[in-house]
């Protein structure tokens, strides 16, 4: 039978892959997609906890994470567009103050 920790390990793996992506990639769009991947990994662990605990708050939580992801996508893409209008590039190495 499937156990809770299989799902949690999958979630931890996907989360860490997302973190690598955010830290390594230089394209703002791809960084943004890596953040979406992280949110998705979190959703897996929330749903897993919810099913294994027999408690629905986790699934409700996922609902709102989805809502927030949609809102963030709207604002984030608007910022990308307004930046692109001035700069014609999304390579964050070319954006001076974006180095971290």
């Amino acid at each position, binding site marked *: 039978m499937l156990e809770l920790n299989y799902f949690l390990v999958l979630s931890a793996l996907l989360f860490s892959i997302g973190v690598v992506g955010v830290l390594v990639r230089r394209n703002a769009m791809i960084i943004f997609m890596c953040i979406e991947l992280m*949110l998705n990994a*979190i959703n897996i*662990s929330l749903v897993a906890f919810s099913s294994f605990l027999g408690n629905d708050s986790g699934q409700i*939580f996922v609902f709102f994470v989805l809502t*927030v992801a949609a809102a963030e996508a709207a*604002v984030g893409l608007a*910022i990308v567009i*307004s930046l692109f209008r001035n700069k014609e590039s999304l390579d964050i190495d070319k*954006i001076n103050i974006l180095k971290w």
Partner: protein
Amino acid sequence: MINFNDLKEIIPLIIIAASALISLLIAVYSKKSGMPVYVFSLLAVLAALIFTGLNVTKDVIIISEMLRINPYSNAFCMIALLSVFITFMASKDYLEKLGINFGEYYSILLFALFGMMTMIYANDMLTVFIGLETMSICFYVLTGLLRKRMKSNESAMKYFLLGAFMTGFLLYGMSLIYGATGYTNITKILATYTAIRTPMFLIGLALFMIGFFFKIGIFPFQMWIPDVYEGAPTVVSGMMSTAGKVAAVGTLIPVLITLNLVEYKMLFSILATLTMLYGNIVALSQSNLKRLLAYSSIASAGYIMVGITSMSDLSIKGIAFYLLAYVFMQLGAFIVVSVFENSTPDGKDFRNVTFDEYKGLAKRSPVLAIALTVFLLSLAGIPPFAGFWGKYYIFYAAIKSDLIWLSVIAILLSVISVYYYLKVIVYMWFKEPEGETSGEAVPVKALSYAAIMVSLAGTLLFGLYPDLFFTFFKFLIK
């Protein structure tokens, strides 16, 4: 379920939510003049402030235990409301000067305020999450408001990417806390005594706190602050550094105090020390006033962290007072900068933000110079201004809980901070003005003037009569 009796308890929240929606409509129907929406939102914030003040001693848990209205949350809410009120007063003139006086600015700020209040009143992790995200999304937009300016775009991008990244950690922490305890409700989580010392819970809590430390600006999550505050419109930077911090601290502190993690005091003290060190040392080499204020905001995050480390009722008192003083002095300083600041001829960058441009300000506009001097001295913690008492209460609480070495470090570092604040003051008072605009008085519009005066009055009032605060919030004296 929401029932009618619950709604009575959250009138301030409803006022802010409703006025955010109404102000959007007003902005649509009065495109030409920004005045109606400005007056409306100012009155709405004032009304919410009064209603919160009237019911400050309430202590109830409402709406299916999702919100908790208690004196602490009311106090933090009032400080956030006050900060947004002063920001509103100063916004109109500044935005007109930069040509971005959109009516929607006011509704976005009201939406952000709604998020902050939801977050402070939250009694459920989901409420915290939604409030925090509402606030953050509005902050991303406000940071990028100067759409033609490269710096504003870049800092919005940076803030957005880092903010969303850190939200990921916060959420992962929330999911682990939920897994370890089985609840999302904060009261219930804190009541599960066996679960809240398990390693899973502590890892979750650590990730949760990372998310908040990012918002407050605790080392090592402070790197975004100078860039974002420099690029954002100045009044917005002032609001983010005060109201944003109040909201994050007001949400985190009640949880941490109840958890009482005494065995991790050392870790917290180290974080506090590093934050104060970073803020104060890097500030020494700054020559841009907006960046200087950003570093001073990191330093004050360090002082707040000292308060968090002491983990006593006394320290909540100290932090609440410090934040109130901080709203007046930090926001006041940002508003003075916003009044003096101008655009370069091509509209691409800020002018009058480096120290050199402040030379001889005292001769040009003595009132502005006096106000900025008071704010900076108060930030440095010199009596008789409010900032001194804020630091005093925080360090007093730290000494009471046996953190003498930490308070000694904090006091030493705030002595260092006097140096860089004095540098600006010396430039203003003892150097001759230069450049083509030398000698001319800085034009100040009436509303910005009023905002500066309110901040000045607050800094002086709470400096001379610190007891006023505690008399008002009687509950804080036990």
